[in-house]
């Protein structure tokens, strides 16, 4: 889960990584007073807390020289719509005057299976651009998790980036703390960009991105709390309440796919797309779903307006085909939308399941393999 900037900043502060003094605003009242209370010095920067690229260009980052100006900016920006996302919070920080801007991140690298430090003296700008034009200006060093951050790593980074060794102690402290945070918070990415060097020679994290492993959130109560404040798509939310995973695929797709495993979901999507049809949504049932839950899954997918055909492909191990069939039957009995459901059952209790499907009065097509299911969809593509 990606954290908003203010939450990332909170984590940096918790780990004593220097940041600019700031305050989070979530109401329009008394802006100047709140800025004074937080002891900020003008000029300040007001930043919209939304997860979208090009935030600055869209007007999501603005500068204020005094309280009156800050109030005006907040009135306009707070609760406004920025590139389709509602701005519920503003992070207001003192404006920095960096002499130099570096880039520092730690990501979980699947190739080396290690936390990987990425560091560059050319930070602040688009780091992806630097990666293309000046790849040797970006240093990558894997950290052996059995060893952690060692002095030679800092030495290597600074020497390679041609940065004065005078910054060794401070850099070591920041990297050690960032690594500690990375490990304790189960991060996929902990990024500081820019990591600024100010006129007094102090290193400060000016902006940050933190992405946390979804599977680690159960042991991080503060992150679980934060997650509740994020907007969730209605169908995804409804599905997750029943422990299903709903994934939107193509915006204008009219076919939905449902399966008891994500591998098979992907295979089905590939075959349907190859035929030139568009998949709009996929739902992963996981293992062992019972009839009453299957019914909800079918209902949720069919309630999505753009979907008019649903292909259910089951290879039952823990999942029982008769439970699936019963769930489909229940859902179709209550269906108002008059959409077509194509069902393919294989594995545990297949025969019982097929019998239930055969007893359904209209709206359902039984098939005996994935290719047959795709064919059945193709026959009905212009219905």
């Amino acid at each position, binding site marked *: 889960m990606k954290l908003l900037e203010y939450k990332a900043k909170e984590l940096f502060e918790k780990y004593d990584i220097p940041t600019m003094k700031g305050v989070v605003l979530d109401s329009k009242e008394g802006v100047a007073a709140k800025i004074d209370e937080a002891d900020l010095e003008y000029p300040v920067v007001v930043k919209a807390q939304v997860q979208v690229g090009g935030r600055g260009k869209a007007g999501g980052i603005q500068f204020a020289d005094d309280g009156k100006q800050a109030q005006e900016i907040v009135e306009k920006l707070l609760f406004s719509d920025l590139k389709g996302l509602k701005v519920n919070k503003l992070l207001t920080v003192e404006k920095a005057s960096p002499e130099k801007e570096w880039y520092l991140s730690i990501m979980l690298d699947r190739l080396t299976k290690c936390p990987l430090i990425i560091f560059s003296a050319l930070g602040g700008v688009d780091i992806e651009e630097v990666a293309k034009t000046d790849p040797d200006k970006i240093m990558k060093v894997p950290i052996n998790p059995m060893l952690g951050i060692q002095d030679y790593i800092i030495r290597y980074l600074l020497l390679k980036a041609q940065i004065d060794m005078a910054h060794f102690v401070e850099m070591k402290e920041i990297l050690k703390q960032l690594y500690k945070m990375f490990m304790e918070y189960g991060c996929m990415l902990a990024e500081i960009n820019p990591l600024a060097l100010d006129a007094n020679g102090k290193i400060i994290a000016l902006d940050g991105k933190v992405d946390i492993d979804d599977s680690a959130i159960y042991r991080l109560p503060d992150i679980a709390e934060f997650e509740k404040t994020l907007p969730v798509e209605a169908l995804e939310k409804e599905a997750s309440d029943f422990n299903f995973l709903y994934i939107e695929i193509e915006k204008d797709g009219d076919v939905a796919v449902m*399966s008891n495993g994500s591998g098979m979901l992907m*295979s089905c999507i590939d075959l349907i797309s190859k035929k030139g049809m568009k998949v709009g949504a996929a739902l992963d049932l996981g293992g062992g779903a019972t009839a009453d839950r299957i019914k909800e899954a079918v209902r949720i997918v069919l309630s999505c307006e753009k979907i008019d055909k649903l292909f259910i492909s089951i*290879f039952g191990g823990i999942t029982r085909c008769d439970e699936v069939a019963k769930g489909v039957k229940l859902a179709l009995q209550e269906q108002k939308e008059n959409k077509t459901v194509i069902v393919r059952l294989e594995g545990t209790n297949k025969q019982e399941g097929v019998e239930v499907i055969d007893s359904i009065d209209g709206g359902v097509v039984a098939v005996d393999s*994935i290719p047959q299911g795709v064919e059945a969809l193709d026959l009905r593509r212009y219905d």
Partner: protein
Amino acid sequence: MSVIIDKDTRLIVQGITGREGEFHTEQMLEYGTKVVAGVTPGKGGQTVLGVPVFDTVREAKEATDANATVLFVPARFTKAGVYEAIDADIPTIITIAEHVPVHYMMECYHLAKMKGVRLFGPNSFGIISPGKSKAGFMAHKIFEPGKVGILSRSATNCYETVFMMSNEGIGQSTCIGVGGDMIPGSTFVDLLEDFEKDPETEAIVIIGEIGGSEEELAAKYIEKNITKPVIALIAGKNAPKGKSMGHAGAIVSADGTGSAENKEKVLKKAGCHIAESTVHIVDILKDILL
């Protein structure tokens, strides 16, 4: 011969007293797996389905000379279970659970490498050598003994393939669920050599998917070291970028790393047969073997 497990494998089930642990122990015993011990802290001294239960893996190993373990424990206890098994010098460790925090698996991965332990999963159906032994929860009825080795990131795609293979009379030597997570204990590269050396295996099937670079690493290895025919399927060509497709590891990054196109390209260059679908895998196998 077969790969990783065979009829002489002496298996521990960690979490044997849990609902899933007990159910699948019964399935494994029925299949002929030598389940010699169970481990559940606090339940030592009991028996489950005639299998003695111990409080610790070390006691289980001392009493039964077990040489493999499968963990039917929830995701949050998987790391502790793996550490315990590594520390008790169990050479083969198979993990099943979904949603294990990826940092935990990273730590398990490095510890296992350091100690020379073979670690599998998580988010895996386990390992089966049809007709001999199984360690995991796969629906074993669809498997038939034979000459094809399978490595799969997905359980459902593997079942689908195996089901059609068995119907066509093409059996399997060993099938390994490498798992759908970001940092699996063993990946394709770690296992290809085993299948190359296994005299019972005549062809190797790799069922990969989008995300990560394991298929690319496998391609390099295959080009240099594998003489047996390799058939590869990459699922997820039409999955949206930047979204995890249910398997935590099945995600294409914004810069395109992990795309199906690249994986297919390098595997093809390495001399693999590229299958378009699970049906196609079976067609290719028929051409090669029959």
